[in-house]
């Protein structure tokens, strides 16, 4: 439903979102922070102040300050001088916000995308089913329930014998 004459504000908003879509996730550069669903809100105030609200993936993520700086820089690069970057915990980040396109790029990169979270029990000892990102087999074994970053775990595929990383469903 495109307006034939978009208002300056809405035009500016889409430009800002486009700029944020080019900010890579510092730890998984094949996806952007908008692909990951980390950018929750962008507003442009009356005086031209741009406020970007983002949510952390994991509370202990060491890349948070990098992401915050990258967001601010991406908006400044558009010529905006007044930028505020806020963080929010609500609603808490979930891997369900990762889009289909980004999931496919994760898979091609060799990371098994996260399964839907569903309404899992709090205390469950079995992990969600995971498919090998290379050959598609479900015949995989988790070799470590934590991985090189907080959001991933380690697997090996018993069909094609490749080790791979898989996203946790959060």
């Amino acid at each position, binding site marked *: 439903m495109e307006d034939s004459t978009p208002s300056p504000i809405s035009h500016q908003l889409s430009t800002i979102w486009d700029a944020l879509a080019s900010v890579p996730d510092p730890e998984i550069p094949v996806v952007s922070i908008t692909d990951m669903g980390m950018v929750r809100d962008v507003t442009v105030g009356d005086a031209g102040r741009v406020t970007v609200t983002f949510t952390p993936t994991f509370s*202990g993520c060491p890349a948070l300050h990098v992401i915050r700086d990258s967001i601010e820089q991406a908006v400044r690069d558009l010529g905006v001088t007044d930028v505020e970057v806020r963080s929010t915990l609500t609603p808490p980040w979930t891997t369900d916000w990762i889009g289909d396109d980004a999931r496919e790029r994760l898979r091609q990169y060799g990371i098994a995308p996260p399964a839907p979270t569903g309404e*899992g029990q709090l205390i469950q000892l079995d992990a969600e089913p995971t498919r090998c990102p290379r050959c598609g087999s479900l015949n995989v074994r988790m070799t470590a329930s934590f991985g090189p970053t907080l959001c991933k775990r380690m697997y090996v595929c018993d069909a094609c014998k490749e080790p791979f990383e898989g996203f946790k469903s959060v």
Partner: protein
Amino acid sequence: MTTTPTELTDTQTQALLLKLTVLADDEIILAHRNGEWTGHAPILEEDIALANIAQDELGHAGLYLSLAQTLGGSDPDRVAFWRGPDDYLNTRLVELPKGDWAFTMVRQFLYDTSEALWLEAATRSTYAPLAEIAAKAVREEKFHVQHTALWVERLALGTPESERRTQAALTELWPHAAQLFQPVEGEAELTASGILPDLNAVHARWSDLVTRHLVDRCGLTLPDAPATQPGRDTHTEHLAPLLEEMQRVARQHPDAEVW
């Protein structure tokens, strides 16, 4: 949820500040103990896992202390690095030396299950900022519980040696675990207002959960626990050296912008 924002009285604010501090202190001290395994864990994957878990716990401490700061508390870095053993209010459970692998896993299991159940209850807090933190942290904590529950089972049902060590760890740790459920001063009023979870209810759920896992599933024996425990201001001789190491860099470089 459409609850109106909870206005805290001065008494409630002080009690909540204290509660957030003791929660953060447990996370910080346990994270440091887990960090001591970095480079020394039995296998590389576990080295990484324990570092991940420690990182999550520090993240939770950061959330608690940031909220405390909005209630009048000090800067989180100052709270973590500039208080001595007389001011830390962590449980003795988390300050005991890391011991062997069984000791570390049993302690982490006892702690993770208590934290997960407390957080799950705290998601229903009438104080929205706390409910938000709990909703965030509980999602991370469930991975810890999965991991440590599996390790305790593996060790308890493994070899005679691993079983002996796991039972020895449980025997030493169990009397300290009840301290996790000691209320802070003023906590009863916060519970009555729905700001904090009912600690007795969480304790009962925890006892049921860990008994089912440790006794029914893993065949371990729960020792007797003393009826009363000294408070969180009473520490073992192990806390002071831990803090000395943990705080050394921050105190040597008080003007550093990033540690």
